[in-house]
């Protein structure tokens, strides 16, 4: 026996080590700890990952920030050379975007009202934590990123991770000062998505080649390349409406016949990420900051429109009702008031709601206008002075319509 052990010592040690690891694999796969968003590591496994992350993350931080420092110095110099032109361009673009935003604000408000009426639960991103990507898993078989924010910054497992361009993934393991991000192109990831035009829903996941695709979709001729894909919110992890990518093409899925897979081009360049945002809080109401942005954009939009549109500035009016400035533009021409108010005079026609079908038309009374009263007085005075006999004017006066005389 002793000779056997000494003779086969090396292969026996290899066998023991491999068997021990296989046993460990079986334990990890057999007894996963289920967390709030799915499968989590056990305590011992998590401890090993924590030690390794703690060992390497300081060096990754140093390399990252020293590299950033050198590149920032150079980039700042280059930026300063064109900052004025760029500032003007950005200002113009900002004005244009504010105009667009203001035009969309009313639609957004109407949408909110409708959502309230339908008791629809919409989630809004209200708080995010910015983080630097400091490392990867080192293999293309595991699409993992390491970021420099962890539990001390309020991060928790299954929090969505985004950039301004779209979805990146979700937080997986959280350590005190670092955290692992599982990218959406990993085979073990999955998120609910919806195609914006065809309104098809599906589950997006990665494949072994690092591509993202929507699986288990029935063939549909309406699916065209270039269609936008956004999160559906059905997975309870990612808020609804965040951009995911665009449809690249539809491919056959031999393992899931007759279903097809829709290959998606992510809106985020997942292989070149420097900074990400971890969504740490979502709310059911529109965040205050967003409301202020909309209000500000509306005011700014009004100012921009006032500057751009041709208009007449208000003239200073003197006490006599005439403009004090001779160069001031004339006040708008208004029609003179009627000499004899009749049924065509504005405001003289009764409201339609006050009328009754088949009822006689109500008698109307027209208030004498100031001009007609003064004209009549002058006419009567003049007639009295020129003609001693008032009877000559009696028929003429009789033909004139009196205010109380019915018109029809």
């Amino acid at each position, binding site marked *: 026996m002793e000779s056997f052990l000494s003779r086969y010592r090396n292969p026996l040690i290899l066998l023991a080590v491999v068997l021990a690891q296989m046993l460990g694999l079986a334990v990890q796969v057999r007894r996963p700890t289920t967390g709030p968003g799915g499968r989590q590591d056990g305590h011992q*496994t998590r401890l090993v990952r924590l030690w390794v992350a703690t060992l390497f993350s300081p060096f990754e931080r140093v390399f990252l920030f020293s590299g950033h420092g050198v590149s920032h110095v150079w980039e700042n110099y280059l930026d300063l050379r064109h900052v004025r032109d760029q500032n003007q361009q950005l200002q113009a673009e900002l004005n244009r975007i504010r105009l667009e935003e203001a035009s969309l604000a009313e639609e957004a408000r109407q949408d909110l009202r409708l959502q309230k009426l339908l008791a629809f639960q919409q989630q809004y991103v209200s708080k995010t934590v910015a983080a630097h990507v400091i490392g990867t898993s*080192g293999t*293309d078989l*595991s699409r993992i990123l390491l970021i420099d924010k962890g539990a001390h910054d309020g991060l928790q497992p299954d929090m969505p991770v985004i950039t301004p361009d779209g979805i990146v993934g979700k937080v*997986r393991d959280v350590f005190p000062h670092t955290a692992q991000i599982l990218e959406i192109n990993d085979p073990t990831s999955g998120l609910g998505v919806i195609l914006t035009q065809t309104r098809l829903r599906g589950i997006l996941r990665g494949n072994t080649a690092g591509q993202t695709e929507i699986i288990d979709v029935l063939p549909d001729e309406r699916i065209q390349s270039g269609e936008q894909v956004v999160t559906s919110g059905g997975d309870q992890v990612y808020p609804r409406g965040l951009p995911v990518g665009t449809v690249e093409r539809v491919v056959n899925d031999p393992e899931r016949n007759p279903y097809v897979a829709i290959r998606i081009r992510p809106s985020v360049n997942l292989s070149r990420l420097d900074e990400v945002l971890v969504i740490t809080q979502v709310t059911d109401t529109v965040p205050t900051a967003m409301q202020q942005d909309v209000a500000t954009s509306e005011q700014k939009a009004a100012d921009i429109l006032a500057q751009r549109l041709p208009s007449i500035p208000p003239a200073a009016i003197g006490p006599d009702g005439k403009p004090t400035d001779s160069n001031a533009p004339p006040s708008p021409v208004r029609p003179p008031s009627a000499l004899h108010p009749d049924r065509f005079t504005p405001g003289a026609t009764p409201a339609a709601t006050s009328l009754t079908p088949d009822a006689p038309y109500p008698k109307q009374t027209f208030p004498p206008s100031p001009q007609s009263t003064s004209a009549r007085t002058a006419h009567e005075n003049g007639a009295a002075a020129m003609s001693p006999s008032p009877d000559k004017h009696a028929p003429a006066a009789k033909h004139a319509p009196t205010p109380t005389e019915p018109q029809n």
Partner: protein
Amino acid sequence: MAFIPGTSRREMEEHRFHPLVFIVAPLLAIFLQVYLPLRFPGIAVLNLPLLIVIYFAVSRRSPIAGTLIGLIIGMIQDAMTHLPLGINGIIDCVIGYMAASIGVRIDVDNPGTRLIMNFLFILLGSVLHVLILSRLLGTHEAWSWMHELIRATVNALIGVILFALLDRLRRRE
């Protein structure tokens, strides 16, 4: 490939390194493996830690040492991923053991031998990876011969350069 007769074991003295080399070189390889893909995404096709395992295994010419080096480096690699611990550990153990066993029998200082050895071990590592994932963990793994051959070729070429650099860290007797 130059085979060494079994009687000339005296000529096959194990290469000696400063103890710090055994610590710093693997850690540096792992660090570069996880950091460089941020700047150069294509570098993820390399497997620098496995190349380090092969180098130290053939240098030490001890199967037990090769197994233990593979175990430690493989477990660290696993800890950087989200996959269960032990996948790379098993692969690196087996390859470390085989590399040390081969190092006893053939001249591994020849660049041509190193190129072929690295190519075959990297290819073996890919096969073991697929077998572990599909047979032990029950997950589906796609296999592309072209991709794996390219990966093995690139790693073999980089390995020859890496081994030449590490040779400079040997202790002179």
